C-alpha cells in the first residue's frame, strides 16, 4: 500500500463556545481527488483551514494529527509551516470575489508565491506568471498581468486563484467549494480545469463540496461529514451503488428526480427531513434525530467509524452491525 500523502487522524477543532469538528479522520493518496461532502455548517471549511493551520481567530486544534508528507502540520513550527504553505500544499477559497487582494495587480499576486518559495527574480516570476495565466485559460495574459481583480469576472478570478495555487506545483491542492459562487456553466469549466491540472501536475486534490453531482463526476473517493463527524467514506463507485449510512442514503434518494433520473446538481443535500441543528446537544449519534433506522442504542454514544469492506468505512451501529456491541457497553 502506498503511504497516504495526507493522513488526518482524529482531528478535533473547537471554538471557545464548543467543539465543531469531532475526531475527523481521512486519507488523501498521491494524485487522487478526494471529495469532502456535507451540508452547510457541518465543518468542512474549518477542517480545510485546520489542515493548513489557517483557522479563524478563536478556533483551535484541540487534538489529532495532520500528517502531510511525513510532517505533522498540527504540531509543526510556524516557519516550517510557511515553507509548506503555497509550495507543496495550497488552497483555493469559495469566494473568488474576495479572495484576491483588491488593490494589487493579479500578476503580482501570482508572482509573489513563486518569489517566496523559489527565490526567483522579478522578471522570471513575471514570465512564469504569464505562462500560468495562459495555462488556466486567461487570454491575452501578458497584458492582463497588470490588471486588478475588479477587471475580471468571477470565473476568471477563480482561474487566477487556481494559477496562484498551482504556481509551485503543489502535491496537494485543497479546494473549498471552488465553484459554489459561480454560474452553472462556469462551474463545469473550472472543475474541468482543476482536473486537467491535477493530471498534468500529478497533484492530489481535496475537493470540498456540498454537491453530489460534482462528487460523482470528479472524485475518486468520498468522505461524508455530518455535524462535525465523518459518517461514511468510500471510493466513489461503491458509494453511489450502495451507500451504507442512513444519511448518505437519504442524500442519494433526495438527489434522484421524480422521473427516476439522477439530478445531483439540481438538488441540494438538505432535502432530508429535519436539519443539522437537531444534532446540537445530542449525546449519541448526531444523525439520530433525523434517522429512519434509529434504534434505542443510537442515543447512547456517537458511533465509531467501522470498516465494512476494503476502504469502505461507516459510522453507524445499525449499518455496521455493531449494535449489539453498543448495547453491551
Amino acid at each position: 500500500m502506498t503511504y497516504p500523502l495526507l493522513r488526518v487522524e482524529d482531528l478535533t477543532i473547537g471554538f471557545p463556545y464548543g467543539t465543531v469538528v469531532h475526531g475527523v479522520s481521512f486519507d488523501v493518496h498521491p494524485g487522487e481527488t478526494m471529495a469532502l461532502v456535507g451540508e452547510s455548517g457541518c465543518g468542512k471549511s474549518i477542517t480545510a483551514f485546520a489542515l493548513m493551520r489557517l483557522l479563524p481567530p478563536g478556533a483551535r486544534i484541540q487534538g489529532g494529527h495532520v500528517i502531510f508528507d511525513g510532517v505533522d502540520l498540527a504540531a509543526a513550527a510556524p516557519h516550517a509551516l510557511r515553507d509548506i504553505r503555497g509550495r507543496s500544499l495550497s488552497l483555493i477559497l469559495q469566494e473568488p470575489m474576495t479572495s484576491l487582494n483588491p488593490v494589487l495587480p493579479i500578476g503580482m499576486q501570482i508572482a509573489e508565491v513563486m518569489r517566496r518559495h523559489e527565490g526567483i527574480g522579478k522578471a522570471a516570476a513575471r514570465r512564469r506568471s504569464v505562462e500560468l495565466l495562459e495555462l488556466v485559460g486567461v487570454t491575452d495574459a501578458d497584458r492582463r498581468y497588470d490588471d486588478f481583480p475588479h477587471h475580471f469576472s468571477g470565473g476568471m478570478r477563480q482561474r487566477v486563484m487556481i494559477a496562484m495555487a498551482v504556481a509551485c506545483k503543489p502535491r496537494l491542492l485543497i479546494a473549498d467549494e471552488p465553484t459554489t459562487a459561480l454560474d452553472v456553466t462556469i462551474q463545469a469549466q473550472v472543475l474541468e480545469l482543476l482536473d486537467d491540472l491535477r493530471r498534468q501536475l500529478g497533484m492530489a486534490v481535496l475537493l470540498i463540496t456540498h454537491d453530489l453531482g460534482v462528487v460523482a463526476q470528479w472524485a475518486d473517493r468520498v468522505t461524508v461529514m455530518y455535524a462535525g463527524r465523518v459518517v461514511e467514506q468510500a471510493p466513489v463507485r461503491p458509494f453511489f451503488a450502495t451507500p451504507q449510512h442512513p444519511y448518505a442514503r437519504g442524500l442519494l434518494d433526495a438527489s434522484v428526480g421524480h422521473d427516476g433520473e439522477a439530478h445531483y446538481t439540481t438538488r441540494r443535500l438538505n432535502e432530508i427531513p429535519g436539519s443539522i441543528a437537531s444534532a446540537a446537544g445530542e449525546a449519541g449519534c448526531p444523525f439520530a434525530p433525523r434517522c429512519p433506522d434509529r434504534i434505542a442504542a443510537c442515543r447512547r454514544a456517537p458511533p465509531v467509524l467501522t470498516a465494512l469492506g476494503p476502504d469502505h468505512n461507516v459510522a453507524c451501529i445499525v449499518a455496521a452491525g455493531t449494535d449489539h456491541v453498543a448495547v453491551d457497553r
Partner: protein
Amino acid sequence: MTGLGRAGRTLRRTAWQALPTMIGIIILCFFLLKLVPGDAADVIAAEAGSATAETMAALRARFGLDQPLLMQLLAYLDNLAHLRLGFSARFNMPVSELIMARLPNTLMLMLAAMSMALVVGILAGWVMAIFANRWPDRMLQVVVLIFYSTPGFWIGLMAIVLFSVKLGWLPANGNMTIGADLTGFALIADRARYLVLPSLALASFFIAVYARLTRASMLDVQRQDFMRTAAAKGLHPVTIQLRHALRNALIPVTTMAGLHLGNLLGGAVVVETVYGWPGMGRLALEAVTGRDFNVLLGVLLFSSLLVIVANVAIDLLHAWLDPRIEVH
C-alpha cells in the same frame, strides 16, 4: 492612465465646482465684514492717537472706503479678475506680497501637522490592532481618548509649560531663531525644533481620529478572505501586514484625511496665535482686529485655493492606494 493626466482632470473638475463657491463666499464675506463696526481708517486713527476729520477722510479716500458699498465690491471683484488682491491699509503693502510672505509658513505647519497626524495616528492604530484588546491596545486607547477629547490649543499650552518652560527642550514662540545666521542642516534642525509643538497642538485631535480609524479598518481587513489567501501562500506575517493589509486599511484613512484638510486650516488660526507662528491664520486674526478687509478676503481666497490643491493631492494618493477608483 497617467498620474499627470489624472491630476489635470481632477483639478479641472474641482475648479468647476469650487470656483462659483469661492466667488459666492467672497461676496458673502465682503458684506458680512462691512457689517462689523469700524473700518481701517478708524483703527489707524485710533492707534495714531490723534486724527482730524480731514485726515480720516483722506485715508478713506486713499483706500477707496468712501465709495458706496456696491462700488467697493465691484472694484474688488475687478481687481480679482485681474489677479490683484488689492492693497493693505494696515501693513502698507500689497496684499499678495503679504500673503506670499506668510503662505509658506502656514503650508509648512499644515504639512508637518498632517504628516504627524497620519504617521503617528496610523502607527498607533496599527499597534492597537495588532494587540487588540490586550494591554498595549487598552493603554493606547486611553491616550487616544485624551487626544480626542482635549482641545488642541489646551494640549498646545500644556506642551509649552512642559517642554518649553519646565524642561526647556523646545521653543514656544515664533518659527525660527531670529538673528541666528544658520545654513544647511543646522537651519533645517532649527526650523524643525520650532515646528514640533505647534504641529503637535494642531495634529493632536487628528492623531486620535486616524488612530481609531486605522485600528478599526486594520481589524476589519484581518477578517478578509484575501488575508487567508496571502497566508496560504506561505508569506511571512510581517509581509502580509505590510503588503496586503496596510494598503487596504489606509483607504478609509486617506478619505478622511482629505476631508480634514479644511479643518486643519481652520485650526491653524488658533495654533498660530498660541505659538506666535507668522502664518496666514495669524494674519487673518490681525486683519480682523485691524479691520483690514482686503487682507482678510485675500487670506480666505488663498485658503480655499489651498484646500482645493490639497484635495487634488489626496485624490491622487487615493487613486494610487485604491485602483478600483476611476475618475468619472
